[in-house]
């Protein structure tokens, strides 16, 4: 009887251990893929998109490849152990003949690597830093917002936080003003806490980028300088 009890206990423990181990292995297998998201410019038709897919699949291991035609948002998974880098993805999109915009890699451990749109090299050093609210939705919005700001001569760095909807801009105040920075961002179709984008520009954004508009009554616009004030 005692022997039977011992054997039964061993069998039960084995079953529980095996079950737990299988679950852990399943979790590990499920979590062993990195999720890559890249916003690609230049995809004017689905056939163009096919060329991109073929090129990306040259990276052996690419799975779950999807493209949203309207936004150019491209996603796929890649085995974690092969350690794909932002540069690998950028290089492959470029070789396919398209322009990679914002890229992000969500690793299996939950960490996120992001890259922003590359612009011109700066030959100046910023002496001011500002942070302000900019409305937007997605990684493509991030690419557009940052590209708009970085397109201004005098801006050294621009980083828009998608979750907080806050942009941090480092700039040289002898070359560019805070107002100009707000102007180019709203000109790209994105409301800031001091400027509202024009309706037609907002409407020209892809559907996924059409964020909830800021309340125009609540923004604090820049004060307009009255030329009369400057008259002696």
């Amino acid at each position: 009887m005692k022997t039977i009890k011992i054997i039964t206990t061993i069998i039960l423990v084995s079953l529980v251990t095996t079950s737990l181990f299988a679950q852990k292995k399943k979790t590990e297998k499920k979590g062993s893929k990195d999720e890559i998201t890249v916003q690609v410019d230049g995809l004017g038709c689905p056939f163009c998109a096919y060329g991109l897919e073929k090129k990306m699949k040259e990276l052996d291991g690419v799975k779950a490849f999807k493209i949203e035609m309207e936004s150019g948002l491209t996603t796929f998974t890649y085995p974690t152990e092969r350690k794909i880098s932002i540069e690998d993805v950028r290089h492959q999109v470029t070789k396919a003949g398209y322009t990679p915009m914002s890229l992000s890699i969500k690793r299996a451990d939950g960490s996120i690597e992001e890259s922003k749109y590359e612009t011109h090299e700066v030959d100046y050093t910023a002496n001011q830093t500002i942070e302000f609210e900019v409305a937007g939705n997605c990684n493509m919005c991030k690419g557009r917002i940052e590209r708009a700001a970085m397109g201004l001569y005098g801006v050294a760095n621009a980083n828009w936080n998608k979750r907080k909807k806050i942009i941090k801009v480092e700039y040289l105040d002898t070359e560019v003003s805070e107002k100009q920075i707000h102007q180019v961002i709203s000109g790209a179709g994105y409301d800031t806490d001091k400027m509202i984008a024009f309706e037609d520009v907002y409407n020209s954004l892809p559907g996924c980028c059409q964020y909830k508009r800021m309340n125009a009554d609540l923004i604090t616009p820049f004060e307009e300088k009255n030329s009369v004030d400057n008259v002696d």
Partner: protein
Amino acid sequence: MKMYLWLFALCFIAFNASAQGPPIITDKPIMIGEKRIVFKTLTRVEVRENIRFFNAPIMAHYVIKPNLLVAAHIPFAGVNHFEHDHKQSGLGDLSVQMKYQFFRWDESSKTARAALKVQQYFPTGFDSNNYEISVGEWQTFAGFTFGYEALRYGLGANVGYHYVANRADFFHYKLSAGLPLMPLVYPPKQINLYFEYDGEINLESGAHNLFLAQGIQYAIKRITFETAIKIPLIQNEPEREKQKYTLLFGTRFII
């Protein structure tokens, strides 16, 4: 019969095929698939008063770099003179092509590109007295191809000079507009309508010919079929040289 079977096979061979969506007769400056071969066929059957021509090429395009493409065209051509009860068919004028994309502008869901195109024909074919079919002479085409593609429509243009040894030279121009009839999704499943103008000016006689090609293209997943009919709008040719219409049909796939 064999000729028509050959034409049918060339037009509808589709294995491991994939969708393409450029205009049917207008060339495009967008090159996709670096280090990949694109096989295309576009058979044309040109009908005149007492003559019927056909040209059925197999075209292989290889994208060396995203902005550089080389291609080889191997045509099977034929002519049937009903008046004289004379038929001739065989290998047409082989040609090689190079396209270099010198301009590219990419935006979200749209792109504009421009390429320089040079095509060299070799005198490997018989003389059908129609340089678009086979003339057995050295020929060179040099020109530009432009394209703008967005999700809602596409525009294209080709211009160029076509030199034909021992014959009149031509100035060519083509304009195209493409319209998707279904929402654009990926993987591709769509029907496109094309409206294309195909013009040429005989630089020796000054004769100007202009044709309108109305085409339809069906793409589903990896297979593309396309067909068009080309009709004359302006023809300054002797009556017996005038085209009644031209039928075109083909397919495209990437390996």
